[in-house]
């Protein structure tokens, strides 16, 4: 007789996502979907707020717009992520592609208007597969 001991039913830790987006209605739409998918989502209305959040707590994924009205835009936030948060997945969600010199900063790129469900699927694939998925190796 083979007895199988079931694994302890520990709920998985939610994936922590930072969304930096200066269009508030886009932020509401995307965060609603991501929270509905079970992610813990932090909101930044510009790149500077995003950097403040990253200094205060760890996250697994950063989604950022490119052009934002503030001292720090999406590129500055992306550079901060690559310099200080090497294991964080970095997603660009913008109306335009990044400058060719900067596109290697990002692990994925979604063009506006994108279905938020697509980003949720990407995060789920990226953060529920192999253990070494988190580091893009692009830092």
């Amino acid at each position, binding site marked *: 007789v083979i007895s199988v001991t079931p694994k302890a039913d520990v709920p998985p830790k939610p994936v922590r996502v930072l969304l930096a987006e200066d269009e*508030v*209605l886009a932020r*509401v739409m995307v965060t609603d979907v991501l929270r509905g998918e079970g992610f813990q989502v932090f909101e*930044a*209305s510009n790149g500077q707020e995003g950097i*403040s*959040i990253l*200094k*205060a707590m760890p996250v697994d994924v950063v989604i950022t717009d490119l052009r934002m009205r503030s001292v720090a835009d999406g590129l500055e936030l992306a550079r901060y992520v690559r310099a200080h948060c090497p294991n964080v997945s970095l997603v660009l969600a913008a109306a335009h592609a990044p400058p060719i010199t900067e596109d290697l900063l990002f692990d994925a790129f979604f063009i506006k208007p994108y279905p938020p469900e697509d980003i949720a699927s990407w995060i789920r694939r990226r953060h529920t597969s192999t253990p070494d998925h988190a580091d893009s190796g692009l830092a």
Partner: protein
Amino acid sequence: MNSLPDTSKPARVETVLVLDDDVLVRMPICQYLRDCGYRVLEAANADEGAIILQKPDIHIDVVLSDIDMPGKMNGFGFAQWARIVRPGLDIVLAGTPERAAHAAGDLCEQGPMLMKPYDHQIVLDHIKRLLAARTRQAGS
């Protein structure tokens, strides 16, 4: 005869709109309210709050707003404008992080889901830690 409350209908998730230009205050307040069972929308200033309130399909039950915000409207101005646009809207103004934390705690105490006991001190301590960390980083 005792009458029991009708628990057959699921409670509607109430929505709170939080306005605060300081992300390190706004974030823990919003997280605390979400943990209490609210749907929470975040606005970094009065302009963002106005964009949300101008969308009639976005239901808002309560506004919790900082008073001192940069831009065309501070919290008082926003509250006056919001009462014209949405008469009957509950608006709570908070002038300091301490008052915002108290207000969030009050909302959690009155809230529909009561997933956490009333303890505004938790969120207040969190805000203070975040702000202190930022001050240290700015000074280093």
